[in-house]
Structures are given as structure tokens and as C-alpha cells.
């Protein structure tokens, strides 16, 4: 088995799993006032401090959530609601065209149900947002913009955005800047304070922690209306009993991912470069999508002309090689990737793409397994692609 889908989810780190199990054996609701509750609260707050320290944030800026989707929704909707309520002119929401659906669909919902006006910032052929173009937009419409959201790194093609430059142009006009850093944490240096972002999304299961826990780092002065109402556990911005073992394991994983980041990133990037070179040698007309430079270390994303991505996926799956078409699914049907389309690819190139993502436990054997299966799979997928052409 060769697991090349770490961007979907990555194995839990043993330390995070141990921390989870240990904390799950303990009794106590962190909101309870007795000793058991205080014990749980202590675990949560220590985790908050560790997580904040690892990401250049203050502990009070950490709002635990159920994961990346909730954090993205909280940032996009919550900041929009709060700023529009304070100033009815602030109805515009700016997002890049290559955002994850957790942001894009939240923005779309705001437009359809809350009277928001969505502006999708275009990207270049590598998937990058141009800070100067964003600056122009913000200068022209700053008093109408409720929030700007641009991801730190793309989940499909791995392109890393110039986040600090983008955050700076938003901040210059007093507009809160949110960044979805789900794919970035543990892969590239992420420092919340240094980035200048007002809000930042991360999640546990992409860094070796458990699924079902994540966080929004939210500046103390950033207004945000809650999505979930109830006990007000997290700064009154997010309600719900805190998942103590999840939070502990999450913080353990983030800490480990950030501490060992540089060494691991260098190793994974070398492995990825080997993968890219060997795929190109085996399939000379394969197109590497995304940026050759500003790229996540574990990401390789190709279009294989004449192939359908889902046919390749099936054939590789049958050989024990697990990867992804990288695009959103609708009832299991692969849609052409909005990311590739935004980067200027045509429908065919978008549908012929496949994402390979390496992670902390990837080895050369994984790359060898891929290259063992890929040439035959491409040949078969090309034959199978021919049936789609008009006869």
C-alpha cells in the first residue's frame, strides 16, 4: 500500500494518539467548577498555550472548533455579520477564486441569503493572488469590504500564497484578513502574529492529530458573530462542550508538526522532487500544475493528457496506490476542479488531473510503488478516455 493522499488526511502521530487516549480516560467537563472539571480545564488551557506558542499566537486568540470547515465558516460569516451590523455599507466579501469550498460555499451562501456581494479575486497560472490587484480593490472599496479571505496554501495544487503581503494590503485599509492555513501548518512556517492576518484556520487531522478538532486563531480586536449559540465556552464566539482529548491531541500534533517542520519539509520535498522527476520521465507529456517554487513540500499535482483523473485513480487504487483527483465530488462524481479552471486550465486538463501528496511517514517505497503502477495505468486510462470522444 502506498498512501499518497496526505492532503486528505495524514496518519495520527503516535504521541498525539497516546495523548488522546490518556486524556480520554480522564473524567471532567472543562466548564465544571469541581476538581474533575478543573483537571480537564487545565488540560485544555495547557493545550491552548502550546498551540498558540507553536503558531505565534496568544492563547486568548485560539478558538477551538470542530475542524477547518467550521473555522472557515465562522471567519467568513462571523466577521461579515459583525462588521455589516456595525456598518451596513460593509456588505462585500472578497475571497480568492481558488479557496476551499468551506470558504467559497460560505461566501456563496452569504451572497444568496444575507445580501452580501461576493468578489472572487482571480489567480495567475500558478494559482497565486496578486497583492497589487488586491491592494487596488481594497483601496477602491475598503469601506464596503467586510472581510477578505485568501488561503495560505492551496489544497489541490499546493500553491503557497504571499500571505503577509496580502494581509498587509488589507490591513492598510483596516479590513480584516482571514487565511485558511489548513494545508500550510506543519508544511511551511506559519506565524500568526507575523503574518498580519486577523484570523487563521487550522485543523487537527492534516497535521497528525485527530479528525473533528480544529481552531480559528482570531485576533482579540476582530469582531465576530457566533455561528453556534449556547454555553459560550470559547470567548462567547463559539459554544459547545470542549473536546478535551481532541484538543490535547491536536495541540500535541501541532507542536510536533511545527517543531520538526524544517527537517521534515526538506526530506518530504526531496522525495516529492524525486516523484515529480520520475513521473515526468515515465509520462513525458504530463503537466505539473501549480507553482514550481512557492509550493507545499509534499504536493505534486499533474494533468495527464488524454486520461480521466477518476479512471487513473481507479487503476492506481487497484494497485494499492492511493491518491486523489483533488477536486470536489458531487454524489461521488468528480467535477472539473474550480482551482484548475481558475488557473486557466480547460475542462479537459482539469478532468485529467491527479494529486499526489506526501507526508510525515512517506518513504521512497511509496514513490517506487507509484512509478511501478503509473505507466500502465496511464496507458489504460488513455484507451478508456477514447470512448468519450465522438465516434
Amino acid at each position: 500500500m502506498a498512501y499518497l493522499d496526505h492532503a486528505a488526511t495524514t496518519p495520527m502521530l503516535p504521541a498525539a494518539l497516546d495523548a488522546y487516549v490518556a486524556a480520554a480516560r480522564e473524567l471532567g467537563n472543562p466548564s465544571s467548577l469541581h476538581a474533575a472539571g478543573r483537571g480537564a480545564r487545565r488540560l485544555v488551557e495547557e493545550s491552548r498555550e502550546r498551540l498558540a506558542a507553536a503558531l505565534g499566537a496568544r492563547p486568548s486568540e485560539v478558538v477551538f472548533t470542530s475542524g477547518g470547515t467550521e473555522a472557515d465558516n465562522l471567519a467568513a460569516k462571523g466577521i461579515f455579520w459583525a462588521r455589516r451590523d456595525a456598518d451596513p455599507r460593509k456588505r462585500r466579501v472578497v475571497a480568492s477564486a481558488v479557496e476551499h469550498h468551506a470558504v467559497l460555499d460560505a461566501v456563496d451562501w452569504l451572497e444568496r441569503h444575507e445580501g452580501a456581494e461576493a468578489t472572487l479575486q482571480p489567480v495567475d497560472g500558478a494559482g497565486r493572488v496578486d497583492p497589487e490587484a488586491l491592494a487596488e480593490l481594497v483601496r477602491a472599496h475598503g469601506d464596503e469590504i467586510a472581510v477578505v479571505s485568501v488561503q495560505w496554501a492551496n489544497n489541490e495544487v499546493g500553491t503557497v500564497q504571499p500571505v503577509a503581503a496580502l494581509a498587509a494590503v488589507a490591513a492598510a485599509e483596516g479590513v480584516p484578513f482571514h487565511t485558511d492555513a489548513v494545508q500550510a501548518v506543519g508544511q511551511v512556517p506559519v506565524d500568526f502574529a507575523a503574518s498580519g492576518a486577523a484570523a487563521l484556520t487550522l485543523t487537527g487531522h492534516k497535521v497528525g492529530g485527530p479528525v473533528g478538532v480544529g481552531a480559528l486563531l482570531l485576533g482579540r480586536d476582530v469582531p465576530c458573530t457566533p455561528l453556534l449559540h449556547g454555553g459560550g465556552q470559547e470567548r462567547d464566539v463559539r459554544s459547545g462542550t470542549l473536546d478535551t482529548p481532541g484538543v490535547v491531541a491536536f495541540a500535541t500534533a501541532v507542536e510536533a508538526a511545527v517543531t520538526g517542520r524544517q527537517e521534515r519539509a526538506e526530506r518530504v520535498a526531496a522525495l516529492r522532487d524525486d516523484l515529480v522527476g520520475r513521473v515526468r520521465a515515465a509520462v513525458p507529456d504530463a503537466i505539473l500544475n501549480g507553482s514550481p517554487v512557492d509550493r507545499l513540500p509534499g504536493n505534486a499535482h499533474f494533468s495527464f493528457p488524454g486520461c480521466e483523473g477518476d479512471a487513473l485513480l481507479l487503476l492506481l487504487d487497484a494497485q494499492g496506490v492511493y491518491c486523489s483527483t483533488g477536486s470536489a465530488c458531487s454524489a461521488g462524481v468528480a467535477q472539473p476542479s474550480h482551482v484548475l479552471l481558475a488557473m486557466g486550465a480547460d475542462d479537459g486538463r482539469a478532468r485529467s488531473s491527479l494529486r499526489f501528496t506526501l507526508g510525515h511517514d512517506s518513504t521512497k517505497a511509496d514513490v517506487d510503488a507509484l512509478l511501478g503502477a503509473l505507466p500502465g495505468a496511464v496507458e489504460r486510462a488513455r484507451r478508456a478516455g477514447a470512448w468519450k470522444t465522438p465516434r
Partner: protein
Amino acid sequence: MSGGVDSAVAAARARDAGHDVTGVHLALARNPQTFRTGARGCCTLEDSRDARRAADVIGIPFYVWDMAEEFHDSVVDDFVNEYAAGRTPNPCLRCNEKIKFTAVLDRAVALGFDAVVTGHHARLGADGLLRRSVDLPKDQSYVLAVLTREQLDRSIFPLGDSTKEQVRAEAAARGLAVADKPDSHDICFIADGDTRGFLESRLGAAPGDIVDGRTGETLGRHNGAYGFTIGQRKGLDLRVPAEDGRPRYVLSITPVSNTVTVGPREDLEVDVVSATRPIWHSASLAEDCDVQLRAHGEVVAASVSVTADALVATLRSPARGVAAGQAIVAYRPDPAGDIVLGSATITAGTRAASHA
């Protein structure tokens, strides 16, 4: 794997027979929302989930294949165009011909698979002959008779020796949750079952005359000739009763003049059926055999002769309600299951001159 009980058990049996089986669910709706309103459509999200769960229980890989464009072009458009041309299509037959045993099979073979397994109730044994299912009321050989030799050679129908009841019992014994899922009957892309409304939404209203087949007299108006099928009695809404007071039936549909011709039941009777695009498996081009003229229709003894592009059947006793566009399927009666000799698309049913 449609998400129903038949394809689930077929997949399980194919796996038990030692094949390396992969489950495929076809997404057939061009817009994922359009066909997904009815609980019984063949491509609802629930059906996709049911198929996935069945594949999990059986222990085989599972994928959804997007055949929406092909289905729309080959089946839905064909359905509408056929009605517009005054014919009565069978979309399930067309789906077998163009999608399941062409688009899916071709893609599967290119990807390295050897055959398509389906849950159709029909027998296809080692002798290569397609036969009726042991469960005659559930028999689906009629909608498979359009398959060519090459297609049949790459098809596996594991259910032909079982009754539907046995299939359900086996599904329950295997722990498949779809064991007691209701059968689907309707046309999968018309979720509400309103075929006339579906056609009207695509073809628009086209009012025309309803005329008497014997006198040529105009008896009433219709809102679109495509809404009628040969042999139809209900829904004519004729204000003028027949002289003898007997019910009148649709005898023919003429798209050019947009007329629907009606008459008494006996005028529906035909004993010569002409058909085109024959698929013929028998070595002999003339056969005394049984013919079936519509899905789940009665069987009539006939003598059939076949050429490269036509089939003519002379019926031993007249048949009623023979509609152009339907398939004529020839069967050789056999104690081990009636054998499909071939099929063709009906172009006309006529009355031999001697009877006139």
C-alpha cells in the same frame, strides 16, 4: 450497481464465483439535482449510498461513473425524439444498448476488466444463449435482446436461475440492507411518473386533430400527438361517442399532420410486423418461433424472416397495440428457458391483405 437488490446480489455472486469484481454506480443526471427528486429514480443520492453500502458489505471496491452526458444524448434525447416522431421508445432497452453494454463496457474493457455483470433477470449460460429468467414475471430478456454477440460475450447475468423472492432472501442472508427495497418500475428520468408532462415540457404544446380512422371525421383535439401511444384508450377526451357506443383506441400517430387516428378495438389488430435494425443470433434466417412485441407483453406464435437490415414477422394470430419504436423479440421455446433468437425495432404493424 443501481442501489437495488438485484445488482447487489449479482455483484456478490460474481465475487463468490471467483471474479475480481469492482462495483460501479452510474450517475445519469446531468444536473445532479434534476433527476434526484423522486425516491424511486435510478440515480438518486440515496441509491448511490445504498450501492456503496452494498459494495462495502460484499467487500468490493466501489466507484461512481459519470455517464450523464452519454445517458442524456443516447437515452433521454432519443426518448423525446422518438415520441416526437410518433413512435413509442423503450428507454430501458436503449440504456442497455447504449450505456450499460456499450459506454460502460467499452470503458471497463479499456481499463482492463473482462465483462460487465448486471442484476438483470435473464439467463446467459455456458452455451452463450440468452434465455428467459426462471422468474417469468420478472424476466428481462426482452430489454437485453438488443445486445450483439460481442456484447453478450462480455456480459454476466448471475440472477437468471433465481426468482426475485430468492434474490431477496439471499440479500437478507448476506446482510445487504437493500434486501427489502421496493422494485423500481418507472422511467428513472421521469421521477414523478408523468410521461406526458415530461414530453410536453420538452416538446411544447402542439394541438392537433383526433380523427376517426374509418370515416376521416375529426372527433376532437389533442394537445400534442406525442402524448399518445398505439392502443391507448384512456385520455382521448372525445365528446362525440362512437355510433355503436364502443370505446375507441389510438390506431396511429402521424407527426407530419400532427393527427391522432382512433377507431374500434378490432382495427388495432395486426398480423404482420415489420422491423428494422435486426440483431439476430440464430444461424437460420427464417424461424417459426414466438415473438414478444412489448415489455411484459403477450407472446404470439409467428414465422420470422430476417435480412441484413430488416425483420418481418407473420403472426399466427393477430396482436393488438403494436407500436412503432418498440422492440420485437423472437424466442425459441425451450424447456431450459426460452431462447432469444434476436430482436429488431418495430417500424409498422399491418393487416395482411387476405384479412382485409
